[in-house]
């Protein structure tokens, strides 16, 4: 699971008012290089919750993202590379996503988060 996916998922348990961001507990992750697409990064930047991305990256030991970011930073190649790396090149293999309100854990096995809800959570 890439951190881009983490940035767009929220906990949907009945009664939870703010299920985002899911806390990332990572036990195992891998890096896979992929070509950088600057247009894509510039286009998606305004839709990214930056704090959630930076926090998730830190959970994977990647501390190269600033705490805050604004669109002017997209002109710097160095920033684009870091943003690209965090968003698309880090893959969580084993761990869990944890609901910020209820603490419910959604396990991640072989890279696949299990977001199935129990009957009483729907």
């Amino acid at each position, binding site marked *: 699971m890439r951190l881009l996916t983490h940035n*767009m998922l929220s906990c949907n348990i009945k009664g939870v008012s703010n299920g985002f961001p899911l806390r990332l507990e990572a036990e195992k992750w891998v890096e896979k290089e992929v070509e950088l697409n600057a247009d894509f990064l510039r286009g998606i930047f305004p839709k990214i919750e930056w704090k959630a991305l930076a926090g998730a990256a830190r959970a994977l030991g990647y501390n190269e993202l600033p705490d805050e970011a604004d669109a002017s930073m997209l002109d710097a190649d160095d920033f684009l590379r870091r943003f690209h790396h965090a968003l698309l090149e880090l893959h969580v293999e084993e761990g869990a996503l944890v609901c910020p309100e209820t603490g419910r854990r959604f396990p991640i096995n072989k890279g696949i988060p299990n977001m*199935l809800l129990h009957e009483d959570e729907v």
Partner: protein
Amino acid sequence: MKLKQVEGLLGTLQQFSNPKVELEQYPTGPHIASRLLYMAESTFGDISGKVVADFGCGCGTLGIASALLGAEHVISIDIDSQALEIASENAADLELDIDFICCDIKNLGWRGQLVNTVVMNPPFGTRKKGSDMGFLTIALKVASEAVYSLHKTTTRDHVKRTALRDCNAKSAEVLCELKFDVPQLYKFHKKKEVDIAVDLWRFVP
């Protein structure tokens, strides 16, 4: 990548070893899948460089086809963890990076509108009435630019009404009619193989 190459690669994918009838698991054939994605990319530019989600991905065919045609990020979702295991092996065999999520489409929580395009071959709603329209309703909420979906030709008027009236889609257009070959998968199938007419739709949310 050419249409024939996409179709050829999709033909190598592993399919359901133990299809579950209650989920209406039918493989999306390479012919139909390659045409769906090729049209989405070459006519409308909805795939390359986009975030694409495959709803009810099964063994992964449509998401894999999206990745082959240059989608920047693909999220494929299915309720069945066994199907996802096959899908994930299929993606790995072709060295494609696809994110899989195990969830019921109707229960997944989304933050923001990061998905540009949804592609899907939803359950046709023959076992569980309304499941096809349930998928469509959610797809039209999640996608910001376009939804591609297959529905039985016999339901054309109903699909159009649901999309335009109930889901406030800006447009709902049948791109072409295709033959969906249903192999003899389940015990209640009396014939070896049947073709059913399906419409390939493009919706704009």
